[in-house]
């Protein structure tokens, strides 16, 4: 770098007015950090929210179109094939039995491993596992009150008794709390009931779910495939609203920062009117002076992007861990957008100061008027 060049003048000027520059740099860092954090979270938001929604359970329910015929024997296999590897599915068979206290209760046969994956929000004291699982029962917290001994559950169905080993209680806050769950094979052997419902959880947005429904309906025409409407529409609405909220936040913060930077840059030009007037008197063209000023604003914007990207990525990581319990790693892909945002802010904030520069009258200023 030559001793006297535009970059040398710029560097000295920034150092000399470090308090003023720091104020603009902080404002531009804040805008870049907020934009980085929100855009990083935004990029990961869909998968994060979909993952959250998965804990609410199935978003598709398959039942037999003709209830007297039941589901096809290979229905679950067809569901797995059509819904994709990332889908979760569990089949259920239902019957009404009587407890040893004489209370009617809904008993549901299912695959505990599949249900556990499908409904991660279900809270069970313990899940049946290993050799005991064949004869195990999970008691809904209300259903547990209908049996005499929670560990030795005695039920009767059409005169056929069965004794199950109760492994714990189930808390869902829904209808499941009034049921007793046991392995599908045990229920079928005991009551003869075949699976009548398959619950499916498909990750993705409403469009993906609709597409999966169409596919399932195509491969299993004898069934009724329906979305859990509230969940699918609710998820879509929440994701859209969250996106809009994030866009709004970025815009609002960008505007606030633009006003702050405008004030700082305007003050910076007004403070140095005489310096610029002198440069003009020494032969500096309007273009050179404006370039010098814009370069200064853009340097601060770039500095803000570098610092803001680091801070914003760290904030995104912390927010993600705090709210979604997973890490959102820094995304280089957001950098061009953050850069663009800061450059737009700096350029917009330079309009007024540049007008001041254009209107400078060196003679009057250098005379001290």
């Amino acid at each position, binding site marked *: 770098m*030559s*001793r*006297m*060049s535009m970059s*040398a*003048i710029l560097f*000295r*000027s920034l*150092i*000399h*007015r470090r308090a003023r520059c720091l104020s603009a740099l902080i404002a531009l860092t804040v805008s870049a950090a907020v934009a980085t954090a929100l855009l990083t979270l935004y990029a990961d938001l869909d998968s994060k929210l979909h993952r959250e929604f998965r804990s609410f359970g199935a978003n598709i329910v398959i039942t037999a179109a003709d209830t007297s015929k039941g589901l096809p024997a290979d229905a679950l296999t067809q569901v797995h094939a059509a819904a994709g590897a990332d889908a979760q599915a569990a089949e259920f068979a239902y019957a009404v039995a009587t407890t040893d206290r004489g209370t009617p209760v809904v008993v549901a046969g299912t695959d505990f491993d599949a249900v556990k994956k499908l409904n991660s929000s279900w809270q069970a004291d313990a899940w049946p596992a290993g050799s005991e699982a064949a004869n195990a029962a999970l008691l809904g917290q209300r259903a547990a009150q209908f049996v005499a001994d929670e560990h030795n559950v005695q039920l009767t169905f059409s005169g056929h008794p069965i004794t199950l080993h109760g492994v714990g209680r189930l808390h869902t806050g829904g209808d499941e709390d009034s049921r007793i769950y046991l392995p599908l094979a045990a229920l079928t052997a005991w009551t003869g009931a075949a699976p009548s419902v398959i619950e499916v959880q498909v990750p993705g947005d409403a469009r993906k779910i609709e597409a999966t429904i169409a596919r399932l309906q195509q491969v299993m025409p004898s069934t009724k495939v329906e979305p859990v409407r509230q969940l699918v529409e609710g998820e879509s609405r929440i994701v859209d609203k969250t996106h809009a909220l994030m866009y709004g936040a970025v815009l609002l913060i960008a505007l606030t920062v633009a006003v702050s930077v405008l004030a700082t840059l305007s003050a910076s030009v007004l403070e140095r009117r*005489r*310096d610029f*007037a*002198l*440069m*003009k*008197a*020494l*032969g*500096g*063209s*309007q*273009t*050179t002076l404006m370039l010098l000023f814009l370069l200064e604003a853009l340097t601060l914007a770039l500095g803000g992007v570098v610092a803001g990207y680091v801070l914003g990525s760290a904030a995104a990581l912390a927010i993600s861990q705090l709210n979604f319990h997973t890490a959102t790693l820094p995304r280089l892909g957001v950098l061009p957008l953050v850069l663009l945002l800061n450059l737009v802010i700096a350029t917009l904030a330079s309009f007024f100061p540049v007008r001041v520069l254009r209107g400078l*009258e*060196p*003679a*009057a200023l*250098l*005379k*001290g*008027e």
Partner: protein
Amino acid sequence: MENLTDLETRPDCAVIALNGVTREYSGRAGVVRALEDASFSIVAGEWVAITGPSGSGKSTLVNLIGCLDRPTRGELFIDGVNTASLSPTELDRFRADKVGFIFQQFHLIPYLSALENVMLAQYFHSMTDEKEARAALERVGLGHRAEHLPSELSGGEQQRVCIARALINHPPILLADEPTGNLDAANQKIVAELLQNLHAQGHTIVMVTHDPEMAALAQRRIALSHGKVFCHPVSGPVVSLRK
């Protein structure tokens, strides 16, 4: 030695020539005529003092001669070029070539050293030459203060840096606006001697001043009142000519 009156009749010798120059400003109160029908010329190597009370049009005249402004009417020739014919960009270039400014308040860039302040004029003119800038500072007796910031220099030293900056591009005209107005007596003397030396070396100096002692150093005085040039008596012969 040639007599100034003789030279004034020879337009080819005039480094500054005004012919019916008027400058008007439009404001809320209507049109204000800051300078009216000014006609005079200054020859190369001449030292002219411009005097007059506040509001008499001195600043307007300095703006025009310094190519910081253009006349509303009339012709202003600087080194043979009618400045009215130049575009704003050409005028910036022309100003850097033709005029060296010496300001009452020095106007040094606070974050640049004395040397860099001199080089700044080179930068806006053409190319920087550190060696030449150092030589200019040595010429005003400040070679040893080259790396100092303006805040580390006295008023007199700052004015000498300002003079070195004005000289660095070898302009045909030195335009000094109250060059000693902000200085104490000792520094006033130093700057006055410096200007005398520059004049002796053949520089054309146009100096605005309120100070009768400084005005007396000039060969000629152009007095302004209410925007009109009302007298310009010759006080002495032109010492030397640059052309």
